[in-house]
């Protein structure tokens, strides 16, 4: 070493520094051992996600058991629980909006079956040798019906609808809770050895049917719940990265990082429940991607356990040019190739200042033109979303009861100004919601720039409140769906990404197609079909659709729903959109999207290239224990 010949003072300083750093890190380090056992005994740390999730979360709906919308005795909508800012608030206009939009009626209820009837559930199909070996390793598991039911579904409409009716399809036969990466390696090895089938389970928020158990699967199905792998293993402040176990849920990750003064900035709408591993497996996108990037921009390193060994890169670097990036095989594989166990993510110092905002446009066309201009000038704030008129009305219906006459007077005045003075048509206007983040000064400067652009397209600044409420809608929408389902209204969202010049055409055509298809399929009431432009890119935008209808009078509402959604997706494809921007490939349509597996198989079948990539026989969302040939150059075996 060059320093070896120099004075001892310098050596001493270096040693001191090392000690200091070691002191900082010590309580958090010990990466080689499992952290979870230690944490279990740690009373300070409250578990966000317990093993028995059904104790805090609904088994047949979205989110926490204590939080839900309901219409109270006076017929007013309210939100229960104390977890959210909305808790205990009254939403006076939600009922009218609900009844007039869907033709629904509070007299016509369609409540779910009250409780989970464990006796109705088929006993597990156990793989005894597997179970014995698992027990001998001391990895926690469960065979209880409630645990199995909880992990048998994602949050697709048909899944929730069946649960509410008390119908269960094929369930996982057991649940295992690995505590760390090594546990996962062991479990996967055991599964290979005893021919069991594994389904990785993170937050359970999948909307692509990836968690559905194949009904014809004869082997024992093991649900691999990653929730106990929820630690930040280390934070590297110099390189601004954090190494995190993949089972951590979004809100927990953000909370823990915030404590150290950092954030990832990755905020998908499901971040309360979805996990890091899930984000990687589905190529997730966050609301603030304009500043922080999507998951593929955030990920520095991934560790994935496959039936043929562990896949990871040998370094933690920002970019490589050694063949196709293996990360891009893992991201979007939706659990078909292996289990993501640990991820290194970029982190950022917490922003100094955050500000919401909103702009009203006279119509959707003008709004889209403005967003396009913002994207062109590359000055998009952390988040910018444009809601169409129907969604604006929806958001408006979620206005909580105002506390003072003064506020309601102000609201009235605002409305008067926009509709009467500025001549906006309440049935055409639309709203863009904004979120700025960063240095205070820069935010204010940025804000001005964006509002100036908006003004060129006829946009009027409409205040922070409207902006904030817009974002709230996306977090509570899943709770609202449960409310709808209590009153014969079913719905779901789907999304697409589309080139700029086709945004308007796509939105119009898809909405129209939905309305038409509903009519043709005998839906008695006009559906709600609404969209928002929810992300902007250089070359296009992400468009998000909500689609819901009142199903009274339909024999098989879910089937009708699926047919309409299928038609809507077909329309999206015909209009130049993609099947998905971030939800993942919808399973009924995945025949239309060529997955990497298909491409690899195709190329190999022509013998053009020597198979270079790891390829596995896979089912939808299922790691199959029987892999075929492999290529070990890309995976380092750690056995």
């Amino acid at each position, binding site marked *: 070493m060059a320093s070896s010949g120099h004075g001892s003072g310098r050596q001493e300083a270096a040693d001191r520094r090392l000690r200091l750093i070691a002191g900082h890190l010590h309580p958090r380090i010990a990466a080689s051992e499992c952290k979870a056992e230690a944490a279990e005994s740690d009373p300070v740390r409250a578990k966000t996600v317990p093993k028995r999730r059904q104790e805090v979360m609904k088994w047949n709906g979205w989110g926490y058991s204590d939080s839900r919308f309901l219409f109270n005795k006076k017929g007013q909508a309210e939100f229960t629980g104390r977890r959210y800012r909305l808790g205990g608030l009254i939403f006076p206009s939600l009922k009218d909006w609900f009844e007039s939009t869907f033709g629904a009626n509070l007299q016509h209820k369609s409540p779910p079956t009250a409780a989970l009837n464990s006796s109705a559930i088929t006993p597990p199909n156990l793989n005894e040798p597997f179970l014995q070996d698992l027990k001998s390793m001391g990895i926690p598991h469960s065979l209880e019906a409630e645990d199995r039911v909880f992990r048998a579904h994602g949050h697709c409409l048909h899944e929730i609808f069946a649960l509410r009716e008390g119908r269960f399809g094929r369930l996982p036969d057991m649940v295992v809770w690995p505590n760390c990466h090594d546990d996962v390696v062991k479990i996967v090895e055991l599964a290979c050895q005893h021919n069991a089938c594994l389904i990785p389970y993170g937050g359970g928020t999948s909307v692509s049917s990836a968690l559905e158990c194949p009904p014809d699967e004869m082997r024992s199905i093991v649900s691999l719940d990653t929730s106990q792998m929820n630690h930040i293993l280390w934070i590297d402040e110099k390189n601004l990265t954090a190494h995190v176990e993949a089972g951590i849920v979004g809100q927990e990750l953000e909370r823990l990082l915030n404590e150290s003064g950092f954030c990832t900035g990755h905020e998908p709408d499901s971040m309360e429940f979805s996990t890091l591993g899930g984000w990687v497996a589905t190529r997730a996108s966050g609301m603030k991607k304009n500043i922080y990037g999507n998951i593929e921009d955030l990920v520095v390193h991934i560790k994935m356990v496959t039936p043929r060994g562990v896949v990871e890169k040998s370094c933690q670097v920002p970019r490589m040019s050694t063949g196709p990036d293996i990360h891009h095989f893992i991201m979007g594989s939706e659990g078909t190739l292996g289990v993501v166990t640990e991820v290194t993510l970029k982190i950022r110092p917490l922003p100094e200042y955050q500000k919401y905002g909103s702009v009203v446009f006279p119509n959707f066309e003008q709004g889209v033109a403005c967003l396009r201009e913002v994207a062109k000038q590359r000055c998009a704030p952390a988040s910018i979303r444009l809601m169409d008129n129907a969604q604006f009305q929806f958001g408006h219906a979620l206005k909580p009861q105002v506390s003072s006459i003064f506020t309601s007077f102000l609201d009235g005045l605002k409305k008067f100004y926009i509709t009467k003075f500025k001549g906006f048509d309440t049935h055409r206007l639309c709203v863009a919601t904004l979120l700025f983040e960063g240095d205070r000064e820069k935010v204010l400067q940025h804000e001005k720039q964006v509002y100036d652009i908006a003004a060129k397209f006829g946009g009027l600044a409409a205040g922070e409140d409207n902006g904030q409420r817009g974002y709230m809608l996306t977090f509570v929408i899943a709770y609202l769906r449960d409310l709808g389902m209590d009153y014969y209204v079913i719905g779901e969202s789907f999304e697409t990404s589309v080139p700029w010049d086709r945004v308007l055409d796509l939105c119009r*055509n898809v909405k129209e197609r939905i309305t038409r298809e509903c009519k043709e399929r005998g839906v008695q009431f006009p559906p709600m079909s609404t969209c928002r432009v929810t992300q902007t890119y250089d070359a296009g935008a992400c468009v998000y659709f909500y689609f819901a209808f009142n199903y009274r009078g339909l024999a098989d509402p879910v089937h009708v729903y699926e047919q309409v959604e299928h038609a809507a997706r077909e329309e999206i*494809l015909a209009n130049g959109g993609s099947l998905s921007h971030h939800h993942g490939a919808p399973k009924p349509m995945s025949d239309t999207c060529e997955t990497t597996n298909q491409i690899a198989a195709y190329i190999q079948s022509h013998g053009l290239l020597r198979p270079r990539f790891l390829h596995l026989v896979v089912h939808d969302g299922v790691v199959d224990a029987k892999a075929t040939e492999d290529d070990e150059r890309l995976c380092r075996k750690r056995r």
Partner: protein
Amino acid sequence: MASRTLYSQRDPALKKRDDFEDILEERRNSSDLKYALKCYMPVLYKGVTPCKPSMIKTMVLQSEQLRYVVTELSKETGEATEVIQGEALAILEEMAHKLHLGTVRFFAYMLNKAFKVLYQRIRVNEDGIQRLQQAIQEHPLVLLPSHRSYMDFLIVSYLLYTNDLALPVIAAGMDFLGMKFVGEMLRMSGAFFIRRSFGGDRLYWAVFSEYVKTILRNGYAPIEFFLEGTRSRTCKSLTPKVGLLSIAMEPFFKGEVFDVSMVPISISYERVLEEALYARELLGVPKPKESTSGLLKARRILSEDYGNIHVYFGQPVSLRSLAQGRINRSQYNLMPRHISRRPGEDVQVFVNDVAYKMVRLQEESMVLRPWVLVATILLQNPHGVEAVWLAEQTAWLRGLAQAFGAFLDWPDHISASRAVASGLALHPNLVRAERGRVRLATEPKGPGARAPEEDLFNHAVTVLSCASYRNQVLHVFLRPALLAMAMDVAPTSRKDDVYSCFGYLRDVFSNEFILCPGAEVQDFDEACFLLTKCSAIQILKQDIVATERGRPTLSFLSAMFQPFLLGYQVVCRYLCEEVAESLPEKSYVAGVRSYAVKRILSGELACLEVLSSDLQKNVLAALLRMGALRKSKAGELVTLRVNKSAINTIENTLGGRVSTQKPVLARL
């Protein structure tokens, strides 16, 4: 082959059609001026904000599509973009319409006056109007009227104005602009003008297609054009032209509109205004150039009775549902939409199919008056018939036509003899009824002996005019008649043989009649079904045989199409006998005509319809298509090279002299 139960479902005789109402009646009882000045507030496409014609022009000029082509051309030719942009503006100025309500009101006033004098009734299906009103609001609209008279233009706009519907923008031929004042008048009532041919001119194409698409995309007004491209001089639907239709479909394919509704409109005239003019034109007197003075001279016609007009607005056809499963719209996703490219094979085939479908829909809803049946019978009996027999025969034909699904306007309470009489009364220039006999009128011998050619010519005018009425009913009988002819021509009565003859005839005549490409089997099935239904034929296990009762029907059907069969044979014989190796294309029509005249005068040939240049041109197209003729170009001169053996074979096959040897057609 499909079973009987399948047949009955598509029995054309069961077709449900709307009722008509006379719209002139109301006009006769109220003030024309008040009508012209009435409050006109049409419903528009989904509350689109109305914009001025000049706005459309600006939009076209600023469109990316046009700017792209201008830049490309500028790169290729080296000319400044401003210059080319200027040319584009000039083209647009020449093309664009300038709808002006005042002019429309003026037209409405004038037309009102004219219609009341010319016609007894203008009957329209009110339900169709209602449907139109609905359709206008939902999707951009394309109106596709049949085209048999100049009146078609005016009638449709007149009806829409009367019913308070949005006035269409109409594609018209540039030749109208030749008529000084009237051209501009038409422009101000919504016509836009396109050159008849602009094959290679990319700029023209770009301006034109963008103009049409802009109107369509914005739902600014319904677009009206004639699929047949030009007026049919023979009252037979013409093979559709697909250029404008494929432009009109593009906004849908590219997702710029949700759907496009296409409305076939069938306009049938009891007596066509241009009747004699057409016959003369077909015989070689060129069509007079459109001129204002010509129009004024035409005032003479105001003194005659032209009977009824029937306008049938068909069911709007959704382009989206037609394209469902046939067109993969994703193919347009891989290129920016403003760059136009040649549509793919699937799109071309689709557009062509739709064009045929729409023309067939027009045909199906054409109202037929008893007179067309009378004309059909008279043409088969050129030397006249007993009036009583004529009435009987007409009644019989009525039954047959109805069984085949014809849209006859012949109420049950009107007897055959009355129906015949009213037809005869309306066409005194074509028929004579004397001493209980009815025959085609021939011009009275004038003073002094005239050349036999001249006599022949005069007689031919009558025959061709009469034929134009018979032609109106041909589409009803076409398929069964082809089968009847195929049974005549086929060497045996085996199904296979009959089918291949049927296919052959269908192929030969596919320029003459509307026969959808690729629909041989359906057409054959339909023909078999219809003839079986009226017990004219029996379908056995292996064979198709005529029944005793059916023979008159079959021979009547064959005779109805005999002129075409003969016409094609005569042309073939001309090419074999009179032409050495090749002939200039220009002299083809004249050559055929003089050959035919010779044969007729010598008494070898009795069929005067051979003289129709329409038929001659169709034969030419058919022979070119079948490879019996080949075009070769040397400078300006286009020469036709004759493949004599091929032509000989065609002639013999049509004459039933040689069996269709080894047919290459698909077997059943």
